[in-house]
């Protein structure tokens, strides 16, 4: 695709989601400026772009911590006790789901299903998947990230 065509394509309404994804990829979240920029580039009102960003669970409107913990809330994980893991995790970090620790090291998010149900209960930290986690093993996992950053 030539430069000019790429520019044209980026202006179509269909590119709102890919542009928001790109912004989040670059900054870690969708900032107010990013919403304004996407609106300018696609010719859509800011309110519409904001509406799209808040409709989809992928988009974060706040800056996340250095490591994002995604706890799987799929059916298999639910019946195999991810609830107790999540409870320990929030207790250990002192933040609820959706929160970021004061030192900016961790954020906790819940996801619908990571699709590795045979390893339930599962969670992801950044791009690494951890299977068959327990309330105790999750504390050890956190510790390894803390060590790495200190």
């Amino acid at each position: 695709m030539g430069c000019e065509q790429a520019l044209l394509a980026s202006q179509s309404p269909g590119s709102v989601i890919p542009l928001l994804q790109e912004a989040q990829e670059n900054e870690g979240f969708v900032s107010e400026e990013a919403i304004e920029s996407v609106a300018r580039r696609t010719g859509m009102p800011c309110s519409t772009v904001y509406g799209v960003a808040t409709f989809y669970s992928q988009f974060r409107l706040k800056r996340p911590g250095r490591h994002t913990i995604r706890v799987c809330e799929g059916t298999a994980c639910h019946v195999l006790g991810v609830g107790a893991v999540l409870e320990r995790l929030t207790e250990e970090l002192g933040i609820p789901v959706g929160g970021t620790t004061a030192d900016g090291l961790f954020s906790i998010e819940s996801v619908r299903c990571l699709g590795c149900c045979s390893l339930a209960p599962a969670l992801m930290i950044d791009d690494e998947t951890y299977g068959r986690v327990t309330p105790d093993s999750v504390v050890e996992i956190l510790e390894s990230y803390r060590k790495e950053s200190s």
Partner: protein
Amino acid sequence: MTPVHEVRVGLATCGIAAGAQRVADRLQQTADAGRIDLPIKQVGCVGMCFNEPIVDLVDDSGRITRYGHVTEADVDRIVEEHVLGSRIVEDLQIDNEAFFGDQVRIVLENCGVIDPESLEEYRAQDGYVGLEKVLHEMTPDDVIEIVKASGLRGRGGAGFPTGLKWSFAAKETASEKYVICNADEGDPGAFMDRSVLEGDPHRVLEGMALAAYAIGASHGYVYVRAEYPLAIRRLEKALDDARSARLLGEGILGTSFSFDIKIKAGAGAFVCGEETALIASIEGRRGMPRKRPPYPASSGLWGKPTNINNVETLANVPWILRHGAEAFAAHGTETSKGTKVFALAGKITNSGLVEIPMGMPIRQIVFDIGGGIQDDRPFKAVQMGGPSGGCIPMSLVDTPVDYEALKATGAIVGSGGMIVLDDSTCMVDVARYFLDFTQKESCGKCTFCRVGTKRMLETLERICAGDGHADDLDKLIDLGKKIKQNSLCGLGQTAPNPVLTTTEYFRDEYEAHIVDQACPAKVCKPLIRFHIDPGACKNCGLCAKGCPVDAIAAADGGYHVIDGELCVKCGRCEQVCPFDAVEILTGKVEA
């Protein structure tokens, strides 16, 4: 023993999460160091997720020796004993027969066999032969007739006849038509489509090209979940390779047929599995469904005729064109032909991916292929179809996997999630879990879905908290039926199913919660309490040390007691007690 010819390592998401990448790296290091002179090949999900990481050694005659739960240390043993010493490492070898014996592999025929990133390997398994045959020898109508005759029905859940669906879009005249592959696998507990995309991506592309030829489309989209980064990467590679080989793009295989595909990463919205919501999402809008008709076949993406099929549906098509409609229809029942892929998970021994001929009883899937329940606990139910489906109890476990037979139970074949539940699962909690899901995922357009699911969830939460009312069950069922009748799309029309099936088959559990304030499975926290059996307690104090709220203390009689007022019911005392002295009680406290 014939020499080893090739080493395969399962590198799908599940395998990687279990440590398969480290095993593959170790094997590669061994090869790089010159110890073995063998290709180390990455393959997709073989299906035995419970044995990951899996390493297959293939000998010159094509025979496979399979090793499971392989660690980096095991790699050295396998190399030393099997590759160099020609002796099977028996304690690592796993048995295939029980798991694969009753399966029929059509969709998954290449998964775990070929390198998903190699076009050559897909072609060596007769990949793109179907497309070649069709483009040179058949008209679009011929293709539609074959797919109709095969009896293939949509594998995304609704079960609409695929050939008939194609014929609708084919009839339309328009300057542009689209084929969309729905890979927005949103059901929690389902990973069939992810495995196919990660293990055999060209198969899906070939299926799309065949659909495009049949309906006269020149552009296609794969709408895939953003949570599946590996699937997206492998699809991108497959697209590049197919374009270079003139299997996609302008003038495919030297004919006048042109078709190309773009990938659209979804952004996390369950409702986008619905056709019109998915189209809205590709167009860059909030993924909200609209009224049908007009159906996408006449007015879909950008107002043009559009055909949408699920990943598994499309993955069947190349096989059907290669082997013929009759060979496909030879599997299955009167109204449900071919095979179905299921993701077996939950309290099952052999969790993984299975492909079975339609018509197989659920009992055979769970107990023979799946190996029964973990720790030999009693089977309670199997949840099929995710948030749109229902729970099938033991009394109906002989129901065959067939669209009509399963519908009669209140559940559905669904997209393929099969979550097995045992006696430690609370059915009221399962219903609450699914309503929580659909309530949050409701797009908010229809009042019954938006508000109705909220009211149902509140009622279920109350029951789980021990505050149920005598008329709650009737109200749940009444509201559930109304939501089904008054919602626009499949999400709302099916959202009450988990509640309606559990109230029908597990009414006694609801009544125990409401009348006796008891949770028979001991799951619902407000209804349970922890207690130390003075007779079994040895006063070791481990429980008191582990208690995060200091609710446990030594009593005078030489045992520990739990202060119910302070206890947060985290269950840590039960986990740490070496004498099983901590018991969970439920029901009203005896005076």
